[in-house]
């Protein structure tokens, strides 16, 4: 039973709609499924945090949305709609026009994201002129404005500097400026703070959140760091082995997790001030792509497993809290209210 | 059990990439043919081209069998002295292969030894050896081989020239190529040296030479073998070039390069086969060695898998 009529959130202002997305990597031994029947939506100006372990399929989902899947990966099934228009399967040129102007992206390592041989001014101006009709000098002015907005001091001088002349945190600000050049409606942020010092992380997160509130830009914030999610996200999707385990508002998922995996995740986050108890952890580890068990992917590690879990993959179930859903049989058997 | 073993080999990625690459299978076949035919040359050749008694000067300049005036007795024709081209090519292959392999072995022996010593002992010895290697690497190997050969020629008495020419040649080409093996061995040694099992061996008072021989060598041979596959092709080319220039093997044991040089004189007068067939043979030889080397490199390169 496909939950196509389920309510994934407030769909009225949804700018991104992902339905039954499947991403495969064909290999000699058969196709590896990296993203398996994933559906969610993001509303205008909303921050959706996508959290999960390494290899859970978060980055691949983001890359599929922006059309930058590396060969041999391909979208096998499903649809991705942006502002109502279907964007998977668009011709190259049409997709290129969407990238940067409608959907932007930020990646993990600010050092390698910038071309070391060009000044940041040159990289900013070329992005601006690609998507707008501004003249070179006006584009340069806009670039300086952007640099100011992201907090680069002495922007009118630093604009002619090379990437290696900036520190890590400053570079990521430049990356944010580049992503915002053409005012996209949605930004895919793939581990934007993972490569930065903890002290810088908070600044970048605050910057992202502030800018996006101001410009009403939605963010798909991909990370394995729950702390970052807790600071920034409006809604959260928890991914496991290429599937969504649970999705809902930040408060609901963190305070009232329904899926056993989410429960385990939240329990394993250390809280300052608690007595010295052993930190709970989930036994075992997430299966590799070619070793995903039948039924629910989490069943070998699940403390609440029943026989149905080993056979049939769970559908998305309503939990009782509006907008919060979990893919779990066991939870569905219990009464839904909290 | 054997069938299980066999199945593992066939299923392995290496066998897969080998059998799915028709080019590689073809070149392996070619190389095999060349190797076998040259090893068995004395037995296989229809004629013995180097026995003056068996040559008939009247048969000189016979064209290949499929051309007017040719005969299947000499399938590829004869040269200016009546020697059968097919036989001379098979013997020529032999010399080329012998020089090629032996010089690479020499390079490996020198290179691995110096590289290991350099990596294991470090210090000023390491710096010295590496400087030497770097300096030599900036000069093309052919020039080095030429130089060594030239110096040997000048310093050794003329009467000995022909006899030991082939050894001098192997020595020059071998000397020209050691730096790359040394470098690769050195980095491998430095990586292995820091591993714990080496520390354990040292603590147990195992002699450094034993450590190097038993532990380090097996682990650094991989990249060396990859280099060697390119090295053999290169050595064959250098030898052919030197022989062509007249400073390689003596005319009594001609390699493919010598044959080409001899035949070059007759290119314009119409007897093209004397030089063209040895040229084709050389091309096949080098090509097949190169292709196998390419396949080996691609297979063992973790980045491409």
């Amino acid at each position, binding site marked *: 039973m496909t939950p196509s009529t389920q309510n994934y959130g407030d769909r009225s202002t949804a700018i991104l709609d992902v339905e039954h997305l499947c991403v495969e990597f064909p290999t000699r031994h058969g196709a590896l499924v990296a993203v398996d029947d994933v559906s969610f939506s993001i509303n205008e100006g909303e921050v959706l945090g996508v959290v999960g372990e390494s290899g859970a399929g978060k980055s691949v989902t983001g890359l599929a949305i922006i059309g*930058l899947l590396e060969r041999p990966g391909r979208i096998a099934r499903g649809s991705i709609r942006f502002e109502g228009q279907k964007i998977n399967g668009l011709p190259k040129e049409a997709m*290129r026009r969407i*990238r*940067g*102007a409608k959907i932007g*992206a930020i*990646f993990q*390592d600010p050092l*390698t*994201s*910038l*071309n*070391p*041989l*060009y000044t940041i001014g040159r990289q900013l101006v*070329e*992005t601006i002129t*690609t*998507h707008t009709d501004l003249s070179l000098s006006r584009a340069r002015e806009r670039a300086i404005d952007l640099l100011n907005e992201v907090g*680069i*001091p002495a922007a009118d001088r630093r604009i002619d*500097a*090379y990437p290696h*002349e*900036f*520190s890590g*945190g*400053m570079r990521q600000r430049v*990356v944010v400026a*580049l992503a915002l*050049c053409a005012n996209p409606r949605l930004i895919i942020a793939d581990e934007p703070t993972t490569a930065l010092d903890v*002290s810088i992380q908070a600044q970048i997160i605050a910057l992202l959140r502030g800018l996006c509130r101001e410009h009403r830009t939605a963010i798909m914030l991909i990370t394995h760091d729950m702390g970052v999610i807790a600071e920034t996200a409006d809604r959260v999707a928890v991914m496991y082995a290429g599937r969504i385990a649970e999705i809902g508002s930040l408060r609901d998922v963190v305070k009232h997790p329904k899926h056993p995996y989410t429960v385990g995740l939240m329990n394993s986050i250390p809280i300052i001030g608690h007595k010295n108890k052993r930190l709970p952890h989930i036994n075992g580890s997430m299966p590799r792509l070619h070793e995903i068990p039948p039924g629910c992917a989490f069943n070998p590690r699940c403390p609440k497993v029943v026989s149905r879990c080993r056979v049939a993959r769970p559908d998305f179930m309503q939990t009782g809290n509006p907008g919060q859903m979990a893919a779990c049989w066991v939870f569905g058997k219990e009464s839904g209210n909290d | 059990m054997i069938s299980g073993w066999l199945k593992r080999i066939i299923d392995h990625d290496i066998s897969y990439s080998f059998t799915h690459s028709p080019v590689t299978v073809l070149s392996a076949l070619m190389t095999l043919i060349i190797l076998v035919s040259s090893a068995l040359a004395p037995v296989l050749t229809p004629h013995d081209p180097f026995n003056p008694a068996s040559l008939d000067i009247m048969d000189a300049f016979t064209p290949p069998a499929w051309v007017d005036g040719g005969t299947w007795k000499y399938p590829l024709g004869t040269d200016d002295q009546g020697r059968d081209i097919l036989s001379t090519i098979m013997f020529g292959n032999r010399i080329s292969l012998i020089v090629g392999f032996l010089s690479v072995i020499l390079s490996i022996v020198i290179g691995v030894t110096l590289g290991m010593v350099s990596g294991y002992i470090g210090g000023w010895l390491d710096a010295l050896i590496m400087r030497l290697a770097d*300096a030599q690497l*900036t*000069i*093309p190997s052919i*020039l080095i081989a030429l*130089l060594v050969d*030239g*110096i040997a*020629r*000048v*310093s050794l008495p003329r009467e000995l020239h022909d006899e030991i020419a082939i050894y001098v040649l192997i020595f020059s080409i071998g000397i020209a190529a050691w730096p790359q093996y040394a470098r690769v061995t050195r980095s491998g040694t430095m990586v292995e040296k820091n591993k714990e099992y080496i520390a354990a061996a040292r603590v147990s008072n195992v002699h450094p030479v034993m450590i190097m021989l038993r532990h380090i060598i097996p682990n650094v041979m991989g990249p060396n073998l990859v280099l060697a596959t390119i090295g053999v092709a290169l050595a064959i*080319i250098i030898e*052919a*070039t030197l022989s*062509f*220039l*007249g*400073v390689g093997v003596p005319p009594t044991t001609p390699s493919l*390069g010598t044959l*080409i040089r001899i035949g070059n004189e007759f290119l314009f007068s119409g007897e*093209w086969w004397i030089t*063209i067939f040895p*040229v084709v043979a050389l*091309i096949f030889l*080098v*090509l097949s060695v*190169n*292709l196998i080397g390419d396949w080996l490199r691609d297979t063992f390169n973790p980045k491409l898998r």
Partner: protein
Amino acid sequence: MIFYIINRILQSIAVMLVTAFVCFILFNYVGDPINNMVGQETTIQDREALREQLGLNDPTVVQFFRFLRNAAQGDFGISYRLQRPVKDLIPERLPATLELVFASAVLSVVLGILLGIYTGLNQNTWVSRAILAGSLAGVSLPTFVIGILLIYLFSVTLGILPSYGRGEAVQIVGWWTTGLLTISGWKAIILPSITLGLYQLTLILRIVRAEMMEVLLTDYIKFARARGLTDRVINFGHALKNTLIPVITVTGLQVGSLIAFSIITETVFQWPGMGALFIQAVHFADIPIMVAYLVMVALFFVTINLIVDLLYFLVDPRLQIDRGEAGGQG
């Protein structure tokens, strides 16, 4: 930056000195110079007199400095075989070699880079595959084989290009003779420069291609795509510049080795250059010429390496650390 230049120049001088020393040893101590210079009948006294006259009894250091001083003026003594001062032979042969090397270098670098870019960007077209297959030939074929095949095709069979010599050479500017101002000169240089340049061309092609393919996989290219930049801007703006910088070093060194391979090409085409002279010198153990050639080649190499290093330094902004402000707050 000045320090860098001075450092490199000093290094180059050091290399030249070492080369000169090695040549000096060759010159004086391999074989006996006197024996090589005079006939069998010369008496012992005359040999001794000659030895004294040439200063061969002086201490080694003195001889070395004399050698250096002479070498700096291009005086390498008298060829054993040709009985002419090497100083006269050099200007006769050097221009031929240098022109050949120059023509081959231009050919291999320009074509190599163009083809490398094309095959790097269009990896799966059959044109690309054909070019790659052809490049395998360039790497597998020894230089002299290429020369012979070209001669066979264009001179023997088709008869449209000459197979030996330099064509008509014209004297310009002092002792420099050039073959590039006559039609016969151009016709004569075509086959030899292809022969000499083919190996380098395929090498450069493969390196540019590999580098291009690797650059296209980097994060900054991914980010550039994510910003919606056009393929043209990505390929020829970003990827190209990043590809060419490491290629400069390799290309430069390849061009340097051209002068070594010119020996072979000059032999095949009977091109009247320094290389052909060198081979004959090796045949006949004519040491003064051998030494002169080695010194010239070393000079050539060292100069090219120096130019390449400086070029690299100018082009890569990461090396110019005294530029601009470093760092900033986080």
